[in-house]
């Protein structure tokens, strides 16, 4: 019942989103294509990822660290650790319905940083939590899904034909706040993207270039 009411409301909201790129629904849904559902681009199961992370800052500076992410897609939980290249842990945070910071050394010790980091991690690794408002194609024919978040924002997931994908987050005013761009999969293993770029837009802009070092499946 709620769904019957909510879906038309979401469709109206979608129609009102003039600044969001148009997505045309696919009549009858996408044809069966196991493993290539239109928006299932995120890791499934329990994984331990290690990325090198190059941060590009607004002043032109850059530095590299290591990012360790341990996640469960089923439980939607994640543990995120930032290490110096020499192996020192400078941030260790966990998200399991709420944020817990286990370790945070300056300048990684502000609540703003912890919350923002875990938001970015969820955007990169998890299917959006919001309601799926539409599944279809962009004007260029690329399969895409649009989710409406609880705060009124939107998340678009785009899966391209060359196995790359992108995620864009918009706030409730339809301003683009984050762009995630995943490169082509590694040639080995489970086929996770070799690189992922996350760009934060707005006044506090930054860019993270994540290069996959290893992905380890965690035994259940």
């Amino acid at each position, binding site marked *: 019942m709620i769904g019957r009411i909510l879906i038309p409301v979401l469709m109206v909201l979608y129609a009102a989103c003039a600044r969001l790129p148009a997505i045309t629904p696919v009549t009858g849904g996408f044809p069966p294509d196991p493993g290539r559902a239109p928006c299932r681009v995120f890791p499934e199961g329990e994984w331990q990822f290690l990325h090198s992370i*190059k941060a590009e800052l607004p002043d032109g500076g850059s530095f590299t660290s*290591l990012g360790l992410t341990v996640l469960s897609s089923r439980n939607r939980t994640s543990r995120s*650790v930032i290490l110096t290249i*020499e*192996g020192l842990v400078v941030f260790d945070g966990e998200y399991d319905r709420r944020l817990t910071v286990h*370790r945070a050394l300056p300048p990684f010790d502000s609540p703003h940083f912890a919350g923002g980091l875990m938001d970015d991690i969820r955007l990169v690794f998890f299917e959006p939590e919001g309601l799926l408002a539409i599944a279809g194609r962009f004007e260029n024919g690329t399969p895409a899904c649009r989710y409406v978040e609880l705060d009124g924002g939107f998340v678009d997931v785009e899966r391209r034909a060359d196995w790359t994908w992108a995620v864009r987050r918009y706030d409730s005013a339809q301003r683009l706040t984050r762009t995630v761009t995943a490169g082509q999969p590694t040639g080995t293993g489970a086929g996770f993207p070799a690189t992922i770029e996350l760009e934060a837009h707005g006044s506090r802009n930054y860019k993270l270039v994540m290069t996959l070092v290893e992905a380890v499946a965690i035994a259940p």
Partner: protein
Amino acid sequence: MQGSGIGGAARAVLLLVSAWLSIGWGGSWEELKSAAGGVTSVRAEFVQEKHMKILARPLISSGVFYYQAPASLRWEYRSPLRNVLLMDAERTERWVETAGRLVKESGVNLQAMQMVLEQISQWLDGRFDENPMFSARLDPDQVIVMAPREPAFAKMIQRIEVRLSKRPGVIDTVTIYEGEASFTRLVFNNVTLNSPIDQALFRQVP
């Protein structure tokens, strides 16, 4: 996002490790100091294991380092992420592999390391018990245990344990504890002392 304090702490540990590798062994601080005097250069390979409770398996990296007295260091990771830290009395640089080539980092303030470099001659003299950053205890089973003197530093590193080899001038492992469930172990092998080192290694990244 990354400050000089953290970068400085990480590199301070590398310098300590470098200095430890060049000391000769004895059963007391005085014997360590006495034996440490003759070492002028060190080359060693290392394997670094990062252990954390949450890891399905430890993170492993490996590389090689060169040290030349009085204050030249090249600490090079070759796997899995190639990067090189170059230090001498005048400069500190880090180069990181990006898109297949080594690129010099520009956003990290490494000035704190210059202060650390000034102390290296003290460590090379084997004067661990006089180190302003760490208090040291020499255990009878050939283990040096160092603990930060400053509470702020102790938040980063709880203690460091250095296990000495039976061969004078060589250590087996260095274990850096951030907590009981999180530590980094460096295992050294193929250690060479007092062999000539091409000075270009401390100034250039091939």
